[in-house]
């Protein structure tokens, strides 16, 4: 009796697994099962964190390029944002026979060794959005370095606090980050701190984590607004922190007195820009970033892009400059009331 029960149970379980395997394989694209060929390069695009609008809009641009160029594109990454998980995915893709792996590094430390090892197995590895040490990749598709991002955030906030003139900026500022351990954010914080020296009247008084939770971001901003009476500006430097901090300022009735800025896709912050809570949002064209990355990956796989090139023809984006091994997307965009409606991503 017991034995029969065991058999029934295991057969049922096996059936469930098998069924789920078969049924879903039809709906998803079967990129992995096709052998890599010279005509249709297999490109893997790794975001820092899957499921957030920033990277979903990048993926949109990447898919557009992939359809046009005939690239077999796979977009996947850790939904937790864990760099360790990202490293495991790179190792898996190497085994699957990827032609190109494009990495946006949430933390260069654990990723660089894995990327080097993938390169040694004949995979083209590039970085996009966020770089790793130069010897771990062939090219970096760059929208802005961490330093440029830090500077842009700092200059923008100073300008908003100073009422249009950054030199008038005076008062205390604070940062709401993701987790205190988030490597990316810590890199930006480093450059924000450095840039703040340019504005001696601005004093950084606190850095608080939001743990990637909007509610928490709203709460710490609310507390900081009360604890620091002279607080004039907040850097909200994660996709969850920005709307949370903006909401806190709005509810505290401090719109106009306290400025907040950060990185966000325009669609997500339009509401706060229009009601005046947020004067400026810093970002770049994420759709184009995904598009350019896929073009570079395709060219690399087909052998049309070699080290030492100085320009690169990127389809609808036209000629892009290559500076050493860095392919430049273009400028950082500061979205405000006047221009934000021109963008839909």
């Amino acid at each position, binding site marked *: *009796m*017991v034995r029969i*029960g*065991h058999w029934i*149970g*295991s*057969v*049922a*379980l*096996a059936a*469930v*697994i*098998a069924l*789920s*395997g*078969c049924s*879903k*394989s039809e709906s*998803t694209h079967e*990129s*992995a*099962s096709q052998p890599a060929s010279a005509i249709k390069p297999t490109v893997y695009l790794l975001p820092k964190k*899957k*499921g957030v609008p920033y990277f979903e809009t990048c993926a949109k641009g990447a898919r557009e390029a992939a359809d046009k160029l005939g690239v077999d594109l*796979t*977009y*996947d*990454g*850790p*939904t*937790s944002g*864990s*760099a*360790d*998980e990202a*490293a*495991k*995915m790179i*190792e*898996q893709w*190497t*085994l*699957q*026979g990827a032609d190109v792996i494009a990495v946006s590094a949430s*933390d260069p*430390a*654990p990723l*660089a*060794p*894995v990327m080097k*090892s993938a390169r040694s197995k004949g995979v083209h590895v590039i970085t996009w959005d966020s770089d790793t040490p130069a010897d771990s990749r062939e090219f970096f598709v760059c929208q802005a370095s961490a330093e440029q991002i830090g500077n842009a955030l700092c200059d923008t906030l100073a300008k908003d606090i100073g009422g249009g003139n950054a030199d008038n900026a005076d008062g205390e500022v604070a940062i709401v980050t993701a*987790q*205190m*351990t*988030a*490597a990316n954010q*810590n890199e930006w914080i480093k450059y924000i701190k450095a840039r703040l020296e340019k504005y001696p009247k601005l004093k950084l008084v606190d850095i608080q984590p939001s743990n990637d939770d909007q509610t928490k971001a709203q709460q710490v901003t609310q507390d900081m607004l009360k604890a620091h009476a002279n607080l004039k500006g907040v850097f909200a430097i994660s996709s969850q922190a920005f709307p949370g901090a903006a909401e806190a300022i709005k509810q505290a009735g401090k719109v106009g007195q306290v400025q907040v800025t950060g990185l966000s896709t325009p669609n997500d912050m339009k509401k706060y820009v229009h009601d005046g809570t947020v004067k400026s949002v810093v970002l770049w064209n994420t759709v184009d970033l995904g598009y350019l990355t896929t073009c570079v990956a395709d060219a690399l796989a087909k052998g049309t892009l070699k080290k030492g090139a100085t320009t690169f023809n990127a389809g609808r984006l036209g000629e892009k400059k290559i500076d050493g091994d860095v392919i430049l997307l273009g400028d950082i965009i500061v979205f405000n009331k006047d221009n934000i409606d021109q963008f839909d991503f």
Partner: protein
Amino acid sequence: MLLLVLIALMLTAGHLEPKFVSSRSQEGLLSHVWDLAMLALPMTFIIITGGIDLSVGSMMALTSVTLGKLYIAGHHPLWLAILAALCVGIACGLLNAIFITKVGVHPLIVTLATYSAYRGLAEGISLPEIYSGFPDWFRSLGQNTYGSLQLIGWLFIIAAVFCAIVLAKTPFGRSIYAIGFNETAARFSGLKVNRAKVIIYTLSGLAAAIVSINYSGLRDNAQANVGLNMELDVITAVVLGGTSIFGGRGRILGTILGVALIHETREFVGWHYHRNEYVPLVVGALLIVAVAANALLMRRSSRT
């Protein structure tokens, strides 16, 4: 039964993705499993006694930061840093054990508290700096394979055999089951309950230290983010392996199968669907279905 599920999974996988089941792929993916496997061994002992350890991931973080801070930031010799990391791991486990045995607090609560405390300490001590730049010989210990297994793989095999023998054949192993089955009775029959608990929780800390040292070699960094959410994976693997969360029942072989099943499921879902968001869905469902099937079968067998 778990073995059959595993076989079914591999057959399905082989049908859909022939490359996935090739020995080359499997060997390449093997390095992803050792953290989970290593931590699952002491966790099996702990859960058999009716306890739980939620702090394993945080102990990994604290030992990792110890290692990085001493070697990279403090310029101490690496052997000293490794030794210190091992000691910190043991001390963390010991502290859990003291709270559980001497103070008499439920393990769930103790380790829930130290889950925050250890990772919090790691964050505070490192002011979340990321330490990287370990010497080549140390990294090759983490990365190189020796006869198709990494160093930690061989270590795991030795540890697993040892644990299996201890659990099945020695008086100590029998006392572990006795504690889980009925702690009061175990106490009254003269078993050294507290000593057994101290040993297993300390071992959990030691395993966390070993795993995090290996991680530093494998990925060339040490930081307070190591082992995030690890605890739930480890518990899932052990329970999937047939160990009863109420204690008194469980085997090392079951745990190994549980670990293997989770590993293969996770890698296959990633490999085939390229949808990272499916992984928690499938692993969660697997846990509930497997334990439910087990519970239903148990009831049927106890009725006949």
